[in-house]
C-alpha cells in the first residue's frame, strides 16, 4: 500500500516520488478540509471584540481580587471537601475496576469466543466512554440527588469504558504458550484465567488502575459544579458569591492535590510495577 511510486517521463531520468498520486490527492484533500474548517470556524464563531479588548484589564482585576489568597478558609471548609474529592476518585476507581474486569473479559475474543457477547461488552465500553463524566454526574444527581454518591458513581461509570478497553487489549495481547499448556493439561476455564492470563496481565492491570486514578483525581474536582460532591461544590459557591480569594485558595488546593497524585502514581509505578 505504501509502495514508492516511480514515474518514467519522456526523458530518461526517473523521478522518484514517495507517494502515489491518489495518496497525494488524499493528503491534499485533508489539508484543504482542515484549512476550510479552521477558516469557517474562525469566521462564524461568536467572539465579542469589546470583551477581548477588555481582557487584560479583567485579568489584572481578577488577580487583585484573588490576592491575598484566603488561607484561613482552608481548615474550616476546603480540607473536608478536598478529602471528599479524593475519596470520590478512589472509591469510583475501585468500583470501576470491579465492574470493568468482567466486561473486559467478555470483550476479549480469545477468552470468550462468542462474537455477540464480545460486541455487547464492547457496546457497554463504548457507551461508558462516550459520555463525559460531567454528564454521568448530571444523570446520577438526577437519580440519587446531590452529593458524593452521585460523584462516585459518575467517576466509576466513566472509568469502566477506559479500564475495560485497555484491560481487554492487554488480554488480547497475552502470550498463547502458557494458556495452551494449561488447556493441554485439562485446566478448566477459570483456572486458565487465573493461572494463564492473570499473571500476564497483572502489571498492565495495576498500571491502568493507577493511570485512571490519576485522571479521576482531576475529574472529581469538577464534579461539584453540577452538584456531585467534593471540592467543586465549594468552588461553585465561592464563585457564585464572587469570593475570589476563596476561589484562589480552592484552585491552589486542587493544583497541589493533582500534582501530589501525579507524583504518587509515578513513584508507585517505579517501585511496584
Amino acid at each position, binding site marked *: *500500500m*505504501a509502495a514508492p511510486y516511480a514515474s518514467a517521463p519522456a526523458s530518461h531520468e526517473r523521478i522518484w516520488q514517495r*507517494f502515489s498520486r*491518489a*495518496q497525494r*490527492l*488524499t*493528503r491534499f*484533500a*485533508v489539508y484543504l478540509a482542515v484549512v476550510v*474548517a479552521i477558516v469557517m*470556524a474562525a469566521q*462564524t*464563531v*461568536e*467572539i*465579542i471584540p469589546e*470583551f*477581548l479588548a*477588555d*481582557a487584560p484589564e*479583567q*485579568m489584572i482585576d*481578577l488577580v487583585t481580587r484573588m490576592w491575598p489568597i484566603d488561607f484561613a478558609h482552608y481548615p474550616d471548609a476546603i480540607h473536608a471537601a478536598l*478529602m*471528599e474529592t479524593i*475519596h470520590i476518585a*478512589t*472509591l469510583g476507581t*475501585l468500583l470501576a475496576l470491579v465492574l470493568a474486569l468482567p466486561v473486559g473479559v467478555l470483550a476479549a475474543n480469545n477468552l470468550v469466543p462468542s462474537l455477540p457477547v464480545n460486541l455487547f461488552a464492547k457496546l457497554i465500553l463504548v457507551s461508558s466512554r*462516550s*459520555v*463525559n463524566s*460531567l*454528564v454521568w454526574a*448530571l444523570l446520577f444527581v*438526577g*437519580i*440519587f*440527588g446531590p*452529593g*458524593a*454518591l452521585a460523584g*462516585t458513581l459518575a467517576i466509576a461509570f466513566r472509568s469502566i469504558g*477506559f479500564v475495560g478497553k*485497555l484491560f481487554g487489549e492487554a488480554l488480547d495481547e497475552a502470550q498463547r504458550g502458557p494458556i495452551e499448556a494449561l488447556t493441554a493439561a485439562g485446566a478448566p476455564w477459570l483456572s486458565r484465567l487465573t*493461572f494463564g492470563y492473570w499473571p500476564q496481565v497483572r502489571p498492565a492491570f495495576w498500571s491502568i488502575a493507577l493511570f485512571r486514578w490519576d*485522571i479521576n483525581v*482531576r*475529574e472529581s*474536582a*469538577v464534579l461539584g459544579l*453540577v452538584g456531585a*460532591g467534593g471540592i467543586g461544590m465549594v*468552588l461553585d459557591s465561592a464563585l457564585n458569591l464572587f469570593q475570589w480569594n476563596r476561589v484562589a485558595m480552592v*484552585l491552589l488546593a*486542587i*493544583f497541589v492535590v493533582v*500534582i501530589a497524585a*501525579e507524583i504518587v502514581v509515578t513513584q508507585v509505578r517505579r517501585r511496584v510495577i
Partner: protein
Amino acid sequence: MSTVSAIRDDPFRRSAWPRVAAVALLVYIVYACAQLDVSWERVHAGLDNAARFFSRLFPPNFTRSDLLIKGLTESLEIAILASTLGIVLALPIGLAAARNLMPAWISWPARFVIVAARSLHPVIVAIIFVKAVGFGALAGILALTVASIGFIGKLFTEAIEEISDKQVEAIRATGAPFASVLAYGVLPQVFSRFIGFATYQLDSNLRNSTMVGIVGAGGIGGTLFAAFQRFDYDYVCAILISIIALIMIGELFATAIRAIFIENATFADLFRRGAAMRHVRHTEDD
C-alpha cells in the same frame, strides 16, 4: 538434593503483603463510604427514583432543534479553533521542553508550563477565562487551548526525547544550522506520532467543548445544564443523544485522518477497508 525440593515448591505461593494490602483496602472502603455518607439505603432510595427519572427522559424531545444545532455548531467551532491554536502553541513549547535538544535553562521553564497547563481540568480553566474575556465561545476556546498545550506538549516532548540521534548527528555533521537539523533530522521522526496526538486532541477537545458551557464558556453545555436545572429531562435526553452522535462522528474522522497520514491510505482504501482501520490504535488520556 535441595535444588529438587526448591523446584517442587508451589510456584503459585503468595507472599504475605497482598493480603495485608487487601485488608487495608477493605478498611479504607468502609471508612470512605462512611465519610461520604454512602449507604445501601441511599442507593435503594435512588433506585426507586431512577425509574421515574428514566421515564421522564424518554421519549427525547427534538422540537427545539434550532437551539440544539446552534449549540452543537458552536461546540464544534470551539473544538476546531482550540485544537488549531493549541497545536500551534504546543509545538514550540514541546520542542523547548525536550531535554535532548535544549539546555536545561530552556527545558525546565517549558516543562513547568506544560505541567501547569495539564494540572487543572479544562472546565476549571474555563471559569478563569470566563472572568477574563466574558461569557461565550472565546472563553471555551482559550480554556481548551490551554488543555491542548498541556497534552500535546507533554507527548510531543516525550516523542522528541525518544528519537534516534543518528540522523540528527548526521545532519549536524554536515554543518547544517539548527533549523535544518529540526526540519530534516527531528521532525520526520516524530511526524506520524504527532498526527496521532493531534487527532486524539481534536477528539478530546470535541468532548470537552460540549462541557465547558456548564460554566458559561460557550457551546451546547450551557443549554444542557439549563435544561437540566429546569427539569426539562426529555430535552436533556435529546441533547445527550446529539452530543454522543457528534463525538462518534468526530472519532470516525479522527480514525480516517490517522489512516491517511500514518498508513498512507487513500480515500478508496478507506472505503474498501473500513474494518482494517480499527487496527490503528491510540493511547487514551482525558
